[in-house]
Structures are given as C-alpha cells and as structure tokens.
C-alpha cells in the first residue's frame, strides 16, 4: 500500500493505492478508509488482491484539502473529473459505498463511457418516496454526552456489533480518529444536508444512461439507506444484476462481511 498526494487545481488530494491489475476506483463512505481509518481495512486489502485499487479521500477528508466551493453533488463530480484526468484513467471499474456510492452513480450517469463495471454498496443518492435516508447528522450528536449507540445502530446491523464498537466507540477516542470522523461529516454536510438527506432527485431518471454491467449490494438491515433504494438502483440501470442482499448485515456491510463482499465483487469484476 502506498499513499500519495495528487495536486489538482482545486487543491491536494490524498490517495491510497494498492494491488495490481485493472484499475478500480474506490469511493469511500462514512465507515470506510479515510473516514474512520487512515489505512486499508480488510475489505480493501482483499479487493487489492485482484485489482489495482485507487482510493482517494474526498475533499476535506483525511489529508485531502477542503474545497469551499463544494456546495452540491455536481461540484464533487467535477472534482473527480479533474482527479481522473490527472491520474490519466480513461476507463476503470468503479466501486462506491454509502456517500461514495452516490458520487459513483453521479459520475457514471455523466460519463458512462469511463466505467467498465460498477458496484454500488448501500449507496445514497436517490429519493424514494416514503423511505428517507437516515439522519446521520443527528445521530452523530452523542447521547448523554458520550454515547454513539444511535449512530452505530444506524450504520451497522446492531449497535453492539464488535466492528461498530471498534470504529465508533463511546466517549472520546484518539484526537486524530475523532477528527477524521468529523471531517467526513463536514464533507457530507456540504452535499447531503439539504434536501434531507443525501439525495439528488433527478438522479433516478438518469440512471438508464449507465450501460456498464452493474452490481448493487445492500446489507439486509441497512438503517441509513433503506433497502428500497437498492432495489431502485438495481431496477434503473439496464445492465444491473438483481439486487444482492447480504443477510444479517447493516449499512456497513463491507466492514461487517469484508471477505464475502470482496469475493462477490472480485467475482463480478472478473466475470
């Protein structure tokens, strides 16, 4: 694994890179590399066994410069277009989780030709009537001054899942880890706080433009982005496989089931 900065017009981007093979752009979510860890997690390690995984930190996350011009998802898409130009990546596999899945979908509807295959994991981004995306911001306000049980309950299959307790412990953790989570929330608030929350209404009717083979994976008990969003993604992309639901997992399915997820994704990309 190696980390490096990429200098773009709008600021520095921190990225991690690992593995050999076809390029795979990984866009992170709330419980992920760059947002809770400064290094690969087991899921990304396993992916990198079969591909060249490139994982940039979103603007303002980890060591990437904040970009005050980002106010809407469109601005993030253009950020990544600059990023892709700088990396000289004409075509790649695209995997995104949570907010990263939303960014991936927005990128793909604009530039379907860049995407060889696409994987969305618990992706935000859609408006589905009667199934609002969870309020991660309110849950990030601790209860009784120090409990993040509500946040864990939203982001994992259960609040006392060992991974949940490790990544979102109660009380005050290491300053750097607290800061990393804060940076992700701050980035998220730029694009996801309004409308409530993390969606772009026109996206749904644009999804038919994604002609790459696509796989949509959801944790059975995703309480941040309801399962119906996964069904909508899978139905709306012409080359998507039927929605893959991972039993007993929550929103952070790639953290709760890293080996299984990496296997499913690697198989799909190789098929």
């Amino acid at each position, binding site marked *: 694994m190696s980390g490096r900065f990429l200098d773009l017009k709008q600021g520095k981007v921190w990225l991690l890179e690992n593995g050999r093979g076809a390029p795979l752009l990984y866009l992170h979510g709330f419980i992920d590399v760059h947002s809770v860890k400064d290094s690969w997690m087991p899921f990304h390690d396993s992916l990198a066994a079969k591909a060249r995984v490139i994982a940039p930190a979103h603007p*303002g996350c980890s060591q990437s410069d*904040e970009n*005050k011009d980002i*106010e809407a998802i469109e601005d993030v898409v253009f950020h990544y277009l600059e990023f892709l130009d700088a990396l000289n990546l004409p075509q790649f596999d695209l995997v995104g989780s949570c907010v990263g899945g939303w960014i991936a979908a927005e990128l793909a509807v604009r530039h379907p030709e860049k995407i060889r295959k696409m994987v969305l994991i618990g992706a935000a981004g859609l408006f589905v009537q009667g199934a609002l995306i969870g*309020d*991660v*911001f*309110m*849950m*990030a*306000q*601790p*209860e*009784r*001054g*120090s409990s993040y049980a*509500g946040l864990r309950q939203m982001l994992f299959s259960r609040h006392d899942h060992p991974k949940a307790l490790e990544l979102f412990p109660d*009380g*005050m953790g290491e*300053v750097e880890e*607290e*800061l990393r*989570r*804060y*940076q992700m*929330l*701050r*980035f998220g*608030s*730029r694009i996801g*706080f*309004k*409308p*409530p929350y993390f969606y772009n209404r026109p996206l749904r009717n644009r999804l038919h433009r994604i002609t790459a083979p696509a796989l949509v994976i959801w944790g059975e008990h995703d309480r941040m982005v309801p399962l119906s969003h996964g069904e909508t993604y899978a139905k709306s992309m012409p080359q998507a496989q039927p929605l893959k639901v991972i039993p007993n997992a929550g929103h952070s399915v790639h953290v709760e089931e890293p080996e299984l997820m990496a296997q499913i994704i690697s198989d799909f990309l190789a098929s």
Partner: protein
Amino acid sequence: MQPVQLFCWHFMAYPYLAENFDQIHDTGWVTVPNSLWDNKKARGLYQEYIDQLAYADELGFDGMVLNEHHQNIYGLMPSPNIIAAALTQRSTRGKIVVLGNLLPLHMNPLRVAEEYAMLDQMSNGRLIAGFAPGGGPETFNYDIPSANTREKFWEAADLIVRSWTEDGPFAHEGRYFPLRYVNPWPKPLQTPFPPIWIPGSRSPSTMTEVAKRGYCYFLSSRSHGGETHRAQQEFAAVLEKNGDRYQPFRFGILMSAYVAESDRQAREECEEGVWYFLKNCLKGHLRREGRQLTFGPGVPYIPAPAWKEYLKDYKPGRKLLGDVENWDELEASQSIIVGSPETVYRRIWNLIERAKVGNLLIQFHIGNMPKELALKSMTRFAEQVAPRLREHSLPFFEREYPGVNIKQPKETHL
C-alpha cells in the same frame, strides 16, 4: 460613559409540561412532540409574556430582549420580530433588543433588513439589531448545511448593513444571496444604522469578525465563572489587535436572576421554575442527558483545524448547566443568581467588576414560573438592586476607561 445597562430578557418558554416530562421525553428541542401543546392552557400566554416585557419598560429597565428559536419548548419565538412589533406599541423608553434574527435561516437577508428597519421606525429608533448564525437545533429544524453557515452568515450581515448605509438600488453580487436590486424601504431611523450585537461562544474567529466591524460581542454562554472574564479578556485582545479598544458596552452577557425578601424565600419561590428550566427547557440544548443538539460532530460548522483544537481539551463527561444535580452546583455555576437584594447585588457586582461588562441581559421569568413571581422579582430588582448597580458602575467604568467613547463607530471598518 454610562452606568451598566440592565435589560430584561424573556425566552417565552412553554410552561405547561407534565411533571414527568423529563422521564418520558428525551429532548425539549426539534423532535419534542407538539401534541403536548395544550390550547386550553396556552390561550393568552403570549399576552402574559408581552405584559411582563412591557412592565420591564415601566420599571425603567434599559431594554427588553427577544430571540429566535424554532420547534422547542425553551423559547416560543420562531419570529421575535412579531413580539418586537408588539413591544413597539406597548413600550416607550427601553431599547428593543432582538438577539437576534438567525440569518442563515432566512431565505433572503433583505427581509431582515426590511423588518428591522420597520421596527426601528415603529419604535422611534429603539431597536438594537442582533444577528446570529443559529446553533445546532436550527440546523436540524431548517436543514441548514453546516459547513458554510458561518460564511453565509457574514455575507448576510454585511449585506443588511450595506443596505442600510448605501443608497439603493444596488446589485449585491454575493455568493449566497445574490440580489439584483437592493433598495429597502423604509430605512432604519437610527443613523447610520441601529447598534448591532452578535452572539458568540468564545470562538476567536467570531470575535475577530465582530471586532473588525465595530459591533458589540455578546457571550451566549450561560455560566459565569471564570469563563466570562476570560471571554472579556480575549475580546479585548482581539480589539487591540484590530486597532480598537475595549470598553464595557462592546460586551454583553446573559444571566438569570431571582430576587425576593431573603435568600431563603428567593430560593423557595423560584426553585420549581428553575428546575423546570434546567431539566426540561435545557434538555437537548445545555444538558448531556438525552441527545444534545447544540454543538457537536453532527453540526460540523467549525473548520477541521479549529475542531482539532477543541478536541484536545474536550472532556466527554463535563457537566453542562442543565446537568447540575443540586442547588449548590447551580450556585457554583453562577448562571442563575438567586437571593435577597443584597445577595443578588453583590454577586452581579462581582461579575461587573471582574468581567468589566456593560450590558447585562437578565432573564427574570424562568421555566414555568408563575407571572406573579416573575413580576415581583423584577420589581424588587428594579427598586433595590438596579439603582446600586448603576450608581457604582458609572464611576467604576469612568475610572477604568477614562475618556472612552462608548458609541458604536459611525462606519464599519470593512
């Protein structure tokens, strides 16, 4: 120079919650169910509260203070300008302090410029115009993205002042509130514009922005131990850095007080209202119990480097005002000052002497306090505490700040 300015602040709490509210509900803010609103009890409530503020004017308080809150039981003034409009017709002397309108929540700052100008005209030039960015609960109430709310706030504040000082029509080419025609009718009566107060909680960047513009800094924290003194020193240092000089009327604080014949009687009379306030009204705001919405990672409006500094000193277990468990802890917080006229005088005087603060914004009606008690406490304060504070503060300020001009600068420094 002038003596300490004493203002009567009314929050207009919802006072009819059941005794077991705290056991049943995890917050008094944003998600507290409005099915608890009881029209049978609440009919006439606003009239009662407005009467109390009008009475403060009769008693000779220097002003009446209102502020903006949404979807909560702490303060029933989503639009303080409506109450301020009523007060323009119910009062004759005191300032009307709106502290403030929450600028990022208003679709268009021009509306604030217009309404404040109306209030200034309707009150014959008695408006003090407060601008505030809004805290965590308002972020949730109005779905305001956190990351750029401070920039939006200052753009709005500067646009409002420009609309009052520069002849229109002009185009505002701002990032957040672009407007082709800025040309408000009416203009405010006070020239060049009403005094402007901005609340803050010791963030250096807010202090700097306030100092640059020549406005009054208002400390919104409710506890007045060493923190008030520290805030005053920090603000004074920021002013110096900006080529300005501290004087007591550049600074204001919020406190609560209850005065009765004796210490014991004061406590007996106000205790129910105080606990109602601490345990119900502050739940979700200045209380750890439940989910505190005011400040935290879920409302990430502070840039990451400043948040890192905050984290270094952060102690998750630290008690907030609403977490006090007994009367002694409450007394130690120096937030709610209760006692005989002598006690209340002495404790407030200590604060003035130490923090050199000129604007005291005092909450008299606390929680579900019956109006008779609030009025009685206000009367006693006005007759037996205020005169002594005024008498002693004038020579004190003159001695400490000789020859200082206490008027706000005629032009902003921008």
